[in-house]
């Protein structure tokens, strides 16, 4: 299992802030996980398919598409940050 977190606009549009996902053997990295989520369609496709600016973190470190994803990881998807 992995934990997947969504923040800000994504959290609202997807209607969830957190979920547990059993990682399929085919998913090895962030791009693979993203494709898995986009395949759900609807808001998942709209928000995660790549035409909106998207950031991700693996175990609380900023990461890009090729970053490995493994059982037990905490993954997060969110828009570019706007604090400060």
């Amino acid at each position, binding site marked *: 299992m992995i934990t997947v*977190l969504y*923040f*800000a*606009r994504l*959290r609202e549009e997807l209607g969830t802030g957190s979920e547990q996902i059993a990682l399929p053997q085919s998913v090895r990295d962030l791009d693979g996980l993203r494709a898995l989520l986009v395949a759900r369609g609807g808001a998942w496709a709209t928000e995660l398919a790549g035409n909106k*600016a998207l950031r991700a*973190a693996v175990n*609380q*470190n*900023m990461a890009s598409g090729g970053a490995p994803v493994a059982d037990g990881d905490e993954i*997060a998807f*969110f*828009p*570019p*940050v*706007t*604090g*400060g």
Partner: protein
Amino acid sequence: MAVRIQTEDFDIGAEIAQLRRANPKIGAVASFVGVVRDVNDGDAVAEMTLEHYPGMTERSIEDIITQARGRWKVFDALVIHRIGTLRPTDQIVLVIVTSSHRGDAFAACEFIMDYLKTRAPFWKKESTPSGARWVESRATDDIAAERWRLKG
């Protein structure tokens, strides 16, 4: 160094006094306070709500401070960032850097703010007359953070 994420307001005078008490060698204190403005992208802003990523936010700011300490001679640095609902004229963020000399203090303080704006996971949602909206990130912030790559 210290990083605090909190809903409560902060007192810059008390925070500087506390950092200074810890070290009589300090010769320079550079600081920055960010404040909620009543206008953003041309629209009146009634209030905003700040969301963050608990855990990662603290870690990313600690990492930014560690980078600053590797580049400049800095005694200490403090970052306080507020979350929750804020209104125009409310304080959002405080950065304080102490050093022997002003050049190091200024550079590290501005570096921390520029990197915080592009790396620390916070998101602002504003209430305007045309409804609530998530604030879009600014290209100028990316440019501000990027220029530190060129400097020494």
